[in-house]
Protein backbone atom coordinates (compact mmCIF):
# COMPACT_ATOMS: atom_id res chain seq x y z
CA UNK A 1 0.00 0.00 0.00
CA UNK A 2 2.81 2.44 0.84
CA UNK A 3 5.61 1.20 -1.41
CA UNK A 4 8.17 3.88 -2.32
CA UNK A 5 6.77 6.20 0.36
CA UNK A 6 8.93 7.73 3.06
CA UNK A 7 7.37 8.23 6.46
CA UNK A 8 8.36 9.95 9.69
CA UNK A 9 7.01 8.87 13.07
CA UNK A 10 7.91 10.94 16.14
CA UNK A 11 8.23 9.02 19.38
CA UNK A 12 8.68 5.78 17.52
CA UNK A 13 10.32 3.40 19.96
CA UNK A 14 7.50 2.60 22.33
CA UNK A 15 3.77 1.96 22.52
CA UNK A 16 1.59 3.29 19.74
CA UNK A 17 4.49 4.91 17.87
CA UNK A 18 6.41 1.65 17.66
CA UNK A 19 3.40 -0.18 16.29
CA UNK A 20 2.87 2.55 13.69
CA UNK A 21 6.53 2.29 12.60
CA UNK A 22 6.12 -1.46 12.09
CA UNK A 23 2.76 -1.06 10.34
CA UNK A 24 4.29 1.43 7.90
CA UNK A 25 7.21 -0.89 7.18
CA UNK A 26 4.88 -3.84 6.62
CA UNK A 27 2.92 -1.69 4.18
CA UNK A 28 6.12 -1.07 2.24
CA UNK A 29 7.22 2.39 3.42
CA UNK A 30 10.74 3.40 4.42
CA UNK A 31 10.52 4.80 7.93
CA UNK A 32 12.41 7.34 10.01
CA UNK A 33 11.52 7.75 13.64
CA UNK A 34 12.57 9.93 16.53
CA UNK A 35 13.08 8.95 20.12
CA UNK A 36 14.14 10.81 23.22
CA UNK A 37 15.85 8.39 25.59
CA UNK A 38 15.24 4.83 24.44
CA UNK A 39 18.46 4.31 22.47
CA UNK A 40 18.52 0.53 22.86
CA UNK A 41 14.90 0.12 21.82
CA UNK A 42 15.59 2.38 18.86
CA UNK A 43 18.45 0.21 17.64
CA UNK A 44 16.31 -2.89 17.99
CA UNK A 45 13.48 -1.29 16.05
CA UNK A 46 15.76 -0.12 13.24
CA UNK A 47 16.94 -3.72 12.84
CA UNK A 48 13.39 -5.00 12.93
CA UNK A 49 12.31 -2.61 10.18
CA UNK A 50 15.39 -3.45 8.10
CA UNK A 51 14.47 -7.10 8.57
CA UNK A 52 11.20 -6.31 6.79
CA UNK A 53 13.25 -5.14 3.82
CA UNK A 54 12.71 -1.42 4.37
CA UNK A 55 15.16 1.38 4.96
CA UNK A 56 15.03 2.83 8.46
CA UNK A 57 16.50 5.71 10.46
CA UNK A 58 16.16 6.11 14.20
CA UNK A 59 17.40 9.47 15.48
CA UNK A 60 17.45 10.97 18.98
CA UNK A 61 15.46 14.20 18.61
CA UNK A 62 13.70 16.22 21.28
CA UNK A 63 10.63 17.38 19.36
CA UNK A 64 10.56 20.52 21.53
CA UNK A 65 13.65 21.71 19.67
CA UNK A 66 12.73 23.47 16.41
CA UNK A 67 16.25 23.42 14.97
CA UNK A 68 16.77 19.75 15.79
CA UNK A 69 13.44 18.95 14.14
CA UNK A 70 14.60 20.84 11.07
CA UNK A 71 17.93 18.97 10.94
CA UNK A 72 16.11 15.66 11.33
CA UNK A 73 13.74 16.33 8.47
CA UNK A 74 16.61 17.38 6.18
CA UNK A 75 18.47 14.19 7.10
CA UNK A 76 15.45 12.05 6.30
CA UNK A 77 14.90 13.76 2.95
CA UNK A 78 18.57 13.31 2.04
CA UNK A 79 19.08 9.76 3.27
CA UNK A 80 15.71 8.24 2.40
CA UNK A 81 15.20 10.35 -0.76
CA UNK A 82 12.04 12.25 0.05
CA UNK A 83 9.19 12.62 2.47
CA UNK A 84 5.54 11.66 2.00
CA UNK A 85 4.04 10.94 5.41
CA UNK A 86 4.36 12.62 8.81
CA UNK A 87 2.96 10.98 11.92
CA UNK A 88 3.16 13.33 14.91
CA UNK A 89 3.00 10.82 17.71
CA UNK A 90 5.53 11.91 20.34
CA UNK A 91 3.77 12.70 23.56
CA UNK A 92 4.23 12.72 27.31
CA UNK A 93 2.00 12.92 30.37
CA UNK A 94 2.58 14.58 33.71
CA UNK A 95 -0.77 13.91 35.32
CA UNK A 96 -1.43 15.96 38.43
CA UNK A 97 -4.24 17.86 40.06
CA UNK A 98 -4.12 21.44 38.82
CA UNK A 99 -3.07 22.74 42.23
CA UNK A 100 -0.02 20.49 42.10
CA UNK A 101 0.80 21.12 38.45
CA UNK A 102 4.05 23.09 38.41
CA UNK A 103 4.93 25.50 35.63
CA UNK A 104 7.44 22.93 34.31
CA UNK A 105 4.78 20.20 34.25
CA UNK A 106 2.59 22.47 32.20
CA UNK A 107 5.34 23.65 29.87
CA UNK A 108 6.93 20.24 29.23
CA UNK A 109 3.62 18.67 28.22
CA UNK A 110 2.44 21.57 26.05
CA UNK A 111 5.87 22.04 24.42
CA UNK A 112 6.22 18.33 23.61
CA UNK A 113 2.68 17.38 22.65
CA UNK A 114 1.63 20.58 20.88
CA UNK A 115 4.90 22.43 20.23
CA UNK A 116 6.39 19.23 18.82
CA UNK A 117 3.57 18.98 16.30
CA UNK A 118 4.28 22.54 15.17
CA UNK A 119 8.05 22.01 15.02
CA UNK A 120 7.85 18.90 12.86
CA UNK A 121 4.99 20.06 10.66
CA UNK A 122 6.46 23.51 10.04
CA UNK A 123 9.70 21.92 8.87
CA UNK A 124 8.01 19.31 6.68
CA UNK A 125 5.22 21.31 5.13
CA UNK A 126 7.21 23.14 2.45
CA UNK A 127 8.30 19.81 1.01
CA UNK A 128 4.67 18.68 0.90
CA UNK A 129 3.50 21.98 -0.61
CA UNK A 130 6.18 21.91 -3.28
CA UNK A 131 5.47 18.34 -4.33
CA UNK A 132 1.72 18.92 -4.03
CA UNK A 133 1.22 15.79 -1.96
CA UNK A 134 1.57 14.75 1.63
CA UNK A 135 -0.23 13.00 4.42
CA UNK A 136 -0.17 14.05 8.05
CA UNK A 137 -1.68 12.16 10.97
CA UNK A 138 -1.53 13.70 14.43
CA UNK A 139 -2.05 11.66 17.55
CA UNK A 140 -4.47 13.34 19.89
CA UNK A 141 -6.50 11.74 22.68
CA UNK A 142 -10.04 11.48 23.94
CA UNK A 143 -8.66 13.45 26.87
CA UNK A 144 -8.58 16.44 24.53
CA UNK A 145 -12.22 15.86 23.55
CA UNK A 146 -14.03 14.87 26.73
CA UNK A 147 -11.44 15.99 29.31
CA UNK A 148 -9.86 13.95 32.10
CA UNK A 149 -9.37 14.96 35.71
CA UNK A 150 -5.68 15.50 36.59
CA UNK A 151 -4.83 16.01 32.92
CA UNK A 152 -5.37 19.74 32.36
CA UNK A 153 -1.96 20.02 30.72
CA UNK A 154 -2.30 16.87 28.59
CA UNK A 155 -5.93 17.56 27.62
CA UNK A 156 -5.12 21.15 26.68
CA UNK A 157 -2.23 19.98 24.50
CA UNK A 158 -4.36 17.35 22.80
CA UNK A 159 -7.30 19.70 22.23
CA UNK A 160 -4.73 22.06 20.72
CA UNK A 161 -3.61 19.32 18.35
CA UNK A 162 -7.21 18.96 17.13
CA UNK A 163 -7.48 22.69 16.38
CA UNK A 164 -4.10 22.56 14.66
CA UNK A 165 -5.21 19.58 12.56
CA UNK A 166 -8.44 21.21 11.40
CA UNK A 167 -6.85 24.57 10.60
CA UNK A 168 -3.96 23.04 8.70
CA UNK A 169 -6.32 20.73 6.79
CA UNK A 170 -8.16 23.79 5.50
CA UNK A 171 -4.95 25.68 4.74
CA UNK A 172 -3.25 23.01 2.64
CA UNK A 173 -6.16 21.12 1.09
CA UNK A 174 -5.60 22.82 -2.28
CA UNK A 175 -2.14 21.24 -2.36
CA UNK A 176 -3.36 17.65 -2.13
CA UNK A 177 -2.19 17.38 1.47
CA UNK A 178 -4.50 15.64 3.92
CA UNK A 179 -4.28 16.26 7.65
CA UNK A 180 -6.17 14.11 10.13
CA UNK A 181 -5.95 13.05 13.75
CA UNK A 182 -6.49 9.86 15.70
CA UNK A 183 -7.80 10.06 19.26
CA UNK A 184 -7.13 6.89 21.25
CA UNK A 185 -8.94 6.15 24.49
CA UNK A 186 -7.45 3.76 27.06
CA UNK A 187 -4.79 1.81 25.20
CA UNK A 188 -2.60 -0.78 26.88
CA UNK A 189 0.85 0.91 26.75
CA UNK A 190 3.59 2.08 29.12
CA UNK A 191 1.87 5.45 29.26
CA UNK A 192 -1.31 4.02 30.80
CA UNK A 193 0.37 1.17 32.72
CA UNK A 194 0.24 2.85 36.13
CA UNK A 195 -3.36 3.89 35.72
CA UNK A 196 -4.47 0.61 34.27
CA UNK A 197 -2.92 -1.49 37.00
CA UNK A 198 -4.78 0.46 39.67
CA UNK A 199 -8.17 0.72 38.03
CA UNK A 200 -8.18 -1.97 35.33
CA UNK A 201 -11.55 -3.49 36.28
CA UNK A 202 -13.27 -0.13 36.50
CA UNK A 203 -11.78 1.11 33.24
CA UNK A 204 -12.82 -2.00 31.36
CA UNK A 205 -16.35 -1.72 32.78
CA UNK A 206 -16.59 1.86 31.52
CA UNK A 207 -15.65 0.91 27.94
CA UNK A 208 -18.69 -0.28 25.93
CA UNK A 209 -16.60 -2.79 23.97
CA UNK A 210 -15.45 -4.20 27.32
CA UNK A 211 -11.69 -4.13 26.91
CA UNK A 212 -8.69 -1.85 26.74
CA UNK A 213 -7.50 -0.88 23.28
CA UNK A 214 -4.33 -2.31 21.79
CA UNK A 215 -1.63 -0.47 19.89
CA UNK A 216 -2.76 -2.39 16.82
CA UNK A 217 -6.27 -0.91 17.14
CA UNK A 218 -4.72 2.54 16.87
CA UNK A 219 -2.23 1.70 14.12
CA UNK A 220 -5.08 0.34 11.99
CA UNK A 221 -6.87 3.69 12.17
CA UNK A 222 -3.67 5.43 11.08
CA UNK A 223 -3.26 2.90 8.29
CA UNK A 224 -6.77 3.69 7.04
CA UNK A 225 -6.10 7.44 7.03
CA UNK A 226 -2.93 6.90 4.98
CA UNK A 227 -4.66 4.64 2.48
CA UNK A 228 -6.39 5.56 -0.76
CA UNK A 229 -9.65 4.57 0.93
CA UNK A 230 -9.38 7.80 2.91
CA UNK A 231 -8.66 9.98 -0.13
CA UNK A 232 -11.67 12.23 0.54
CA UNK A 233 -11.09 12.57 4.28
CA UNK A 234 -9.27 15.55 5.78
CA UNK A 235 -9.48 17.59 8.97
CA UNK A 236 -11.11 14.73 10.86
CA UNK A 237 -10.52 13.08 14.20
CA UNK A 238 -11.05 9.32 14.36
CA UNK A 239 -11.80 8.23 17.91
CA UNK A 240 -10.42 4.78 18.78
CA UNK A 241 -11.76 4.20 22.27
CA UNK A 242 -14.10 1.21 22.23
CA UNK A 243 -17.01 3.61 22.64
CA UNK A 244 -15.77 5.13 25.91
CA UNK A 245 -16.51 8.70 24.92
CA UNK A 246 -20.08 7.80 23.89
CA UNK A 247 -21.24 7.53 27.44
CA UNK A 248 -20.21 10.94 28.60
Amino acid at each position, binding site marked *: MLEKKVAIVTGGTRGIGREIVLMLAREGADVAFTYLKSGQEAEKLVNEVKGLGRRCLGVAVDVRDFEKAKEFIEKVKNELDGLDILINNAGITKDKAIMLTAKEDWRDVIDTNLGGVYNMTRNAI*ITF*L*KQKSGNIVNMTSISGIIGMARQTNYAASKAGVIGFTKSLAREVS*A*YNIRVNAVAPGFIDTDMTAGLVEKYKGEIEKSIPLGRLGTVTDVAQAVRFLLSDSADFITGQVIIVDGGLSLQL
Partner: protein
Amino acid sequence: MQEIDTEIKDLIAKVIEKEPDEIDPNARFAEDLGVDSMMALEILAAIEKKYKITIPEEKLMQFTTLNETVKIAKEFLDKKDA
Protein backbone atom coordinates in the same frame (compact mmCIF):
# COMPACT_ATOMS: atom_id res chain seq x y z
CA MET B 1 16.72 41.21 -20.99
CA GLN B 2 18.47 37.87 -20.80
CA GLU B 3 16.81 34.59 -21.63
CA ILE B 4 16.55 33.56 -17.99
CA ASP B 5 14.76 36.82 -17.13
CA THR B 6 12.12 36.10 -19.75
CA GLU B 7 11.78 32.47 -18.71
CA ILE B 8 11.25 33.36 -15.07
CA LYS B 9 8.86 36.14 -16.01
CA ASP B 10 6.78 33.63 -18.01
CA LEU B 11 6.91 31.18 -15.18
CA ILE B 12 5.73 33.74 -12.62
CA ALA B 13 2.99 34.92 -14.98
CA LYS B 14 1.71 31.38 -15.19
CA VAL B 15 1.64 30.92 -11.41
CA ILE B 16 -0.08 34.23 -10.69
CA GLU B 17 -2.35 33.94 -13.74
CA LYS B 18 -1.33 37.19 -15.41
CA GLU B 19 0.10 38.06 -18.81
CA PRO B 20 3.94 38.31 -18.79
CA ASP B 21 3.68 41.89 -20.06
CA GLU B 22 1.73 42.85 -16.96
CA ILE B 23 4.72 42.07 -14.74
CA ASP B 24 7.03 45.04 -14.29
CA PRO B 25 10.52 43.83 -13.24
CA ASN B 26 10.37 45.97 -10.11
CA ALA B 27 6.69 45.56 -9.25
CA ARG B 28 6.34 44.32 -5.68
CA PHE B 29 4.85 40.84 -5.65
CA ALA B 30 2.67 41.22 -2.57
CA GLU B 31 1.61 44.85 -2.83
CA ASP B 32 1.38 45.33 -6.61
CA LEU B 33 0.68 41.86 -7.97
CA GLY B 34 -1.30 40.23 -5.16
CA VAL B 35 1.16 37.36 -4.72
CA ASP B 36 0.57 35.51 -1.43
CA SER B 37 3.02 33.23 0.41
CA MET B 38 1.65 30.09 -1.23
CA MET B 39 2.06 31.62 -4.71
CA ALA B 40 5.62 32.63 -3.82
CA LEU B 41 6.30 29.05 -2.85
CA GLU B 42 4.84 27.83 -6.13
CA ILE B 43 7.14 30.23 -7.97
CA LEU B 44 10.11 28.88 -6.02
CA ALA B 45 9.07 25.28 -6.73
CA ALA B 46 8.59 26.02 -10.44
CA ILE B 47 12.05 27.61 -10.68
CA GLU B 48 13.64 24.67 -8.84
CA LYS B 49 11.96 22.24 -11.21
CA LYS B 50 12.82 24.10 -14.39
CA TYR B 51 16.49 24.65 -13.58
CA LYS B 52 17.00 21.55 -11.44
CA ILE B 53 18.31 23.57 -8.53
CA THR B 54 17.45 23.70 -4.84
CA ILE B 55 16.73 27.06 -3.28
CA PRO B 56 16.60 27.06 0.54
CA GLU B 57 13.20 27.99 1.94
CA GLU B 58 14.78 30.90 3.84
CA LYS B 59 15.18 32.63 0.48
CA LEU B 60 11.43 32.63 0.00
CA MET B 61 11.08 35.92 1.88
CA GLN B 62 13.42 37.53 -0.65
CA PHE B 63 11.12 36.70 -3.56
CA THR B 64 9.73 40.22 -3.60
CA THR B 65 10.01 41.31 -7.25
CA LEU B 66 10.80 39.72 -10.60
CA ASN B 67 14.29 41.24 -10.51
CA GLU B 68 14.99 39.89 -7.02
CA THR B 69 13.70 36.46 -8.00
CA VAL B 70 15.91 36.34 -11.08
CA LYS B 71 18.88 37.41 -8.95
CA ILE B 72 18.33 34.56 -6.50
CA ALA B 73 17.76 32.02 -9.27
CA LYS B 74 21.01 33.10 -10.97
CA GLU B 75 22.89 32.86 -7.68
CA PHE B 76 21.89 29.21 -7.27
CA LEU B 77 22.38 28.41 -10.96
CA ASP B 78 25.93 29.73 -10.67
CA LYS B 79 26.49 27.57 -7.59
CA LYS B 80 25.24 24.56 -9.51
CA ASP B 81 27.59 25.24 -12.42
CA ALA B 82 30.55 25.98 -10.16
